[in-house]
């Protein structure tokens, strides 16, 4: 793809975008329901964000300012690759600052900085079906959703507690949306689950290979499944960020030598950098010039 003029704005043709927008609107109208859509073959592999890319392409307008993160970071290779794709095919402005972005495409994280009305958060979803690993058949899981037959979901949690004394699901932690559909929030750590709830932004989920789109409209309820006597608890490494000293952000563990030394740093690179610019310094950080 060297000759860009051969391609439409944001790569997809307008008819395809309309088809995807219809699926998005249906998803917004039925929060948590997986809307089948005719996912297109994209010039990047399935499983690498084709669903998110199609949703983003259908949402983008020339005035948008796009941010792309993978594992919370703007500079991981796949985030770079997707950001470049849209710079090339849509020519939109890009940013690393969460609050400046109008559209944010993400894989595996929700930014630490609270989102605001008018922002759209697009998730890349590998397996949209929260029941998939309990029941491999699509025909079967579709019926289970239709009937709200979610007993099996709790059987899994029950087994966790009986074996480990607690619910042993650390990411991709299923939620029940607006009292109806059980939804897969994509493989975000369960630390991020509370941010799904009552979020001011529109949250859209795209699964390209599995041909599904679903959504959480602003200020939706999304209850992490649990038991009354074993309530859901968001968790993270019991540290503060070694660079910016944030006590409450999700941390990546970095191995610093072969003697077992390690440090913990914010997975949200924009959040960490902003804090350091504002003068916060962690035990292993250095002060940064204000920007």
């Amino acid at each position: 793809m060297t000759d860009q003029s051969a391609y439409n704005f944001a790569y997809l043709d307008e008819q395809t975008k309309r088809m995807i927008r219809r699926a998005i609107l249906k998803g917004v109208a039925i929060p948590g329901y997986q809307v089948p859509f005719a996912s297109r073959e994209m010039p990047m592999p399935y499983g690498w964000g084709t669903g998110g890319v199609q949703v983003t392409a259908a949402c983008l307008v020339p005035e948008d300012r796009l941010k792309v993160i993978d594992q919370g970071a703007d500079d991981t290779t796949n985030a770079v690759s997707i950001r470049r794709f849209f710079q090339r095919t849509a020519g939109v402005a890009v940013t690393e600052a969460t609050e400046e972005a109008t559209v944010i495409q993400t894989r595996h994280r929700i930014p630490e900085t609270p989102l605001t009305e008018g922002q759209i958060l697009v998730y890349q979803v590998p397996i949209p079906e929260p029941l998939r690993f309990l029941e491999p058949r699509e025909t079967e899981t579709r019926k289970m959703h239709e009937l709200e037959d979610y007993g099996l979901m709790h059987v899994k949690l029950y087994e966790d507690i009986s074996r480990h004394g607690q619910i042993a699901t650390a990411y991709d932690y299923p939620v029940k949306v607006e009292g109806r559909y059980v939804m897969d929030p994509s493989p975000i750590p369960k630390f991020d689950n509370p941010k799904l709830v009552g979020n001011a932004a529109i949250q859209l989920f795209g699964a390209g290979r599995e041909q599904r789109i679903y959504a959480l409209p602003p200020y939706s309820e999304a209850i992490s499944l649990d038991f009354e006597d074993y309530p859901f608890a968001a968790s993270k490494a019991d540290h503060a960020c070694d660079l910016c000293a944030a006590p409450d952000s999700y941390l990546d563990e970095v191995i610093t030598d072969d003697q077992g030394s390690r440090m913990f740093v914010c997975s949200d690179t924009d959040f960490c950098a902003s804090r350091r610019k504002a003068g916060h310094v962690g035990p292993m950080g250095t002060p940064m010039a204000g920007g």
Partner: protein
Amino acid sequence: MDTSIWAKMKTQPLLSVRDLSKFYGGRIGCADVNFDLFPGEVLGIVGESGSGKSTLLSCLAGHLAPDRGEVIFATTEGPRDTVLMAEAARRRLARTDWAYVHQNPRDGLRMGVSAGGNVGERLMAVGARHYGQIREAAVDWLGRVEIAADRVDDRPNAFSGGMQQRLQIARNLVTGPRLVFMDEPTGGLDVSVQARLLDLLRGLVREMGLSAIIVTHDLAVVRLLADRLMVMKGGYVVEQGLTDQVLDDPQHEYTQLLVSSVLQV
């Protein structure tokens, strides 16, 4: 409480079956089956293998689509033909009002899930959300089917055949279903194990006032459990009536043969 058959007859039938037929190619699976089952009644269906009794049970429970006929169940919203129901509605019945005990417990249990999880599943399916209470109910039910409480976290594949079958029964009865289908519940078990299971089932049937349809080739099972009996041969019902009546005074020659062969054992 008057539990005589006549008292039961006064109420509406729980299940009404009309002209039910199922064919496999040119071969008859079951044909022209008619009966009513009343609340609190246990109906036995006997016959040798190939008589159509298992086909009939599958059609009744919605596992097989019959080619003709009606299976009208008294749902909480009134009588409904389950043959014409959308599959979704039928499955809703299957996890609330109905229960199904398979001959092979492996077909009716989740072998990768603990005994407690197996019993708790139906409770969770209808909304139970307190782990402690679910576990308590599971342990209680394990006790009622004579499985020790300390086995609650073991998986069924660590259980003997008889224990697996008792676990399957507990898993099915924990939510108090209105109608239980049983397919050869004692089949494949040793004779001594069978006796214990039968004894247990009889106790549960009496205590809970269960409505059930039991398919078996074993007349001892129906003698002990069933109020009424249907005898099948070649897909047709050849004789039906009160259990004692049919077994003690069989009218059809096939029933006579069946009864006499059992007496020889």
